[in-house]
């Protein structure tokens, strides 16, 4: 066991810090100094800057465009990104379908898709849930029927987060309804922008932004070569991808940003002759959350260290999702509490009324109620732990 910091790592941290400082454009810097609430264009702008540097996918293997860093360096890189409050990148390509393709894709699929995920030329979204298949995901009904070399897709997906910005969608479709429901599902990639018969309709969330969409498929034709894994083998793909997703979905980096923001807000909020940051109650709440986050971070590092020696993330990554999203919600609650009256504000409140660092907090506070629901609700995570790890009997 070794967590010591080498001189090389110290130099690396310095290099990363300096590079971020130099590479961040002025408009992004301005937002980073405020609440760090970015739109899609700013996210992609930062994505492309990281890509140009070769640092966009540290978690990928080097031969497909990763950085070749060990987890120590990746951790430092992550910490510096948090510190800088730079935009966070869309996870659907880099964190989800990318790793899945690396694990299960054909050589042609890797060659076709991975470079454009890296470059940011193609943005991805996820088509899993349906109106009647939420937590019971395996009961999904969107049909994929074979026709020559193609699949014909018919049905509806929902919660297709940021589908309106996406070029591609990875989705689960029913290819066989005769047997066990998990055994008739296939994992398919579709060009969401250019395939006739696919319609995307964003809708507002309680956070006041259109993060979610519904996506309809009406006789949408997709080549069978866009299938990942075997026909009817989609459930295995879905589980593997969810495990990849969950290692990041705990939102540890996001929670660190929120705690950082909370401290800033507390320091800049006058109370009597001092600031809110001198309040022992507030300090204790921040401290407890920060200490708990540290526990979770160590668990994440343990999981990543296991993954580095070839063990794919397994069901234990459910803990990261379960605990991480609860912490994430608590950090936003803490920010709201620190804001006092300012927590009344909303996205269009003028800066005279709502200081820049507090802009967007209320929106995220509302939106992030979804964190304990998406990626398999936390109740589903508990089911996974109970069944797959603890092997408790089924009723």
């Amino acid at each position: 066991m070794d967590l010591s910091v080498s001189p090389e790592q110290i130099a690396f941290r310095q290099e990363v810090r300096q590079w971020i400082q130099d590479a961040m454009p002025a408009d992004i810097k301005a937002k980073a100094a405020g609440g760090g609430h970015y739109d899609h264009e700013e996210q992609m702008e930062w994505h492309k800057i990281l890509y140009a540097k070769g640092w966009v996918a540290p978690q990928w293997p080097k031969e497909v465009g990763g950085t070749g860093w060990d987890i120590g360096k990746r951790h430092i890189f992550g910490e510096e990104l948090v510190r800088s409050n730079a935009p966070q990148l869309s996870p659907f390509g880099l964190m989800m379908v990318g790793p899945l393709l690396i694990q299960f894709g054909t050589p042609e699929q890797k060659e076709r898709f991975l470079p454009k995920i890296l470059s940011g030329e193609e943005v991805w979204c996820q088509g899993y849930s349906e109106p009647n298949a939420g937590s019971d995901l395996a009961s999904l009904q969107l049909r994929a029927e074979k026709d020559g070399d193609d699949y014909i897709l018919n049905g509806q997906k929902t919660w297709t987060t940021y589908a309106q910005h996406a070029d591609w969608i990875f989705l689960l479709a029913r290819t066989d309804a005769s047997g066990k429901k998990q055994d008739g599902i296939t994992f398919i990639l579709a060009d969401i922008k250019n395939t006739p018969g696919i319609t995307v309709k964003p809708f507002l969330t309680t956070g006041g932004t259109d993060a979610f969409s519904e996506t309809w498929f009406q006789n949408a034709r997709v080549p069978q070569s866009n299938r990942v894994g075997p026909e009817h083998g989609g459930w295995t793909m879905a589980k593997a991808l969810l495990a990849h997703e969950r290692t990041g979905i705990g939102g540890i980096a996001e929670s660190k940003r929120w705690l950082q923001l909370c401290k800033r807000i507390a320091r800049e909020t006058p109370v009597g002759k001092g600031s809110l940051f001198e309040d022992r109650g507030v300090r204790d709440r921040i401290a407890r959350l920060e200490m708990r986050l540290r526990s979770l971070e160590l668990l994440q590092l343990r999981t990543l260290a296991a993954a580095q020696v070839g063990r794919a993330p397994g069901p234990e990554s459910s803990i990261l999702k379960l605990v991480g999203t609860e912490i994430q919600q608590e950090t936003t609650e803490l920010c709201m509490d620190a804001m006092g009256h300012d927590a009344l504000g909303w996205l269009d409140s003028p800066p005279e009324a709502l200081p820049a660092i507090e802009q967007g907090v209320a929106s995220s506070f509302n939106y992030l109620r979804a964190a304990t629901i998406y990626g398999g609700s936390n109740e589903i995570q508990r089911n996974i732990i109970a069944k797959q790890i603890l092997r408790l009997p089924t009723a």
Partner: protein
Amino acid sequence: MNFDLTEEQQILVDSVAKFVQNDSPVERFRKLRDTERGWDPTTWARMGEFGWLGVVFPEEHGGFGGQFVDLALILEQLGRGLVAEPLIPSVVLAGGLLSELGTAAQREQFLTPMIEGRTSLALAYAERQSRYSANDCQTRAEKRGTGWALSGEKTWVLNGHAADQILVLARTSGDSLDAEGLSLFVVDGDAAGLERIRVPGMDGQRSALLRLRGVEVGADRLLGEEGRALLPLERTLDRAAAAACAEGQGEIQELFERTVAYLKQRSQFGVPIGSFQALQHRAADMYAETELCRSTMILAAIAADYEDREKRQAEISAAKLQLSRGGWFVQGNAIQLFGGIGVTDEQDEGLFFKRLRVLQGLFGDADWHVARYQGLPGFGSDE
């Protein structure tokens, strides 16, 4: 960054686990808790032979030059059997201070016999009014001839009832809350003027209340520099907190595994109770807390060797908080899921519960560590 055990560490873990399984199951503790001493000198001597008591000390001090992690791994396994031999008071507290501050002669006289399992040690620092503040010390040491005379009262001295030597924290100058002016002295367990009152604990282990009435010691019994004991003491208490997390991990793991096994075995309404979703979700949360405790226990054991005070304290406090908060979740729910039999003395779970609660309250409880953490300079900065 690497969380894997080395080959040597794995061998160590296996041998301690085997010892607990074969020679020190919980039944041994049940017998010992009824005895006056509460632990067994023959077993202690064997631990000395195995090298467990010297694993963290440098080779030139008669140890094996290991890291604190090695000791933590031993403690974790011992926790699974509620092994009551006094490793934390002898090795971590008194042994650590002797190794750090002792002269060659002092080490040879007091540390070496302990490493060999021939003697045991204790550290007397807490007092009635001090709570967890090491600097709050009213016991005084006054110059008497070339030596010193110690007077005062010490509470909750772990292994103080049985120790051959006790390190006593006393004030050689200054007021009762000053950081400067604290010194450590090596006092024999049978010294004239020392009254030892044996105090049975909730966990079935023993400590002592010490009354010192002009206990005389020679100049050679001053440990380290006069008046400068606080910093090394603080470091030692950090290591002890890490040790509590390590031993506590053994108890937490045991409670968690026993509960899951019970959920599969116990039937009500004609089915195993582990098939009920309410209980499954509770067990899933217990699993999460157990793994979080394991993560911070490792972190604390590594941080115990840090020279950087702030970094060491931040990590160890985070771990101690998790031991209290997460550990409490596991132990409380373990008893709840066992139901009525969980609160019977006959069932082992209650013994683990009690030992864990004692460890949570030693070397700073959760609130104390949270307060210390938010007082560290790094908490207020942007770094």
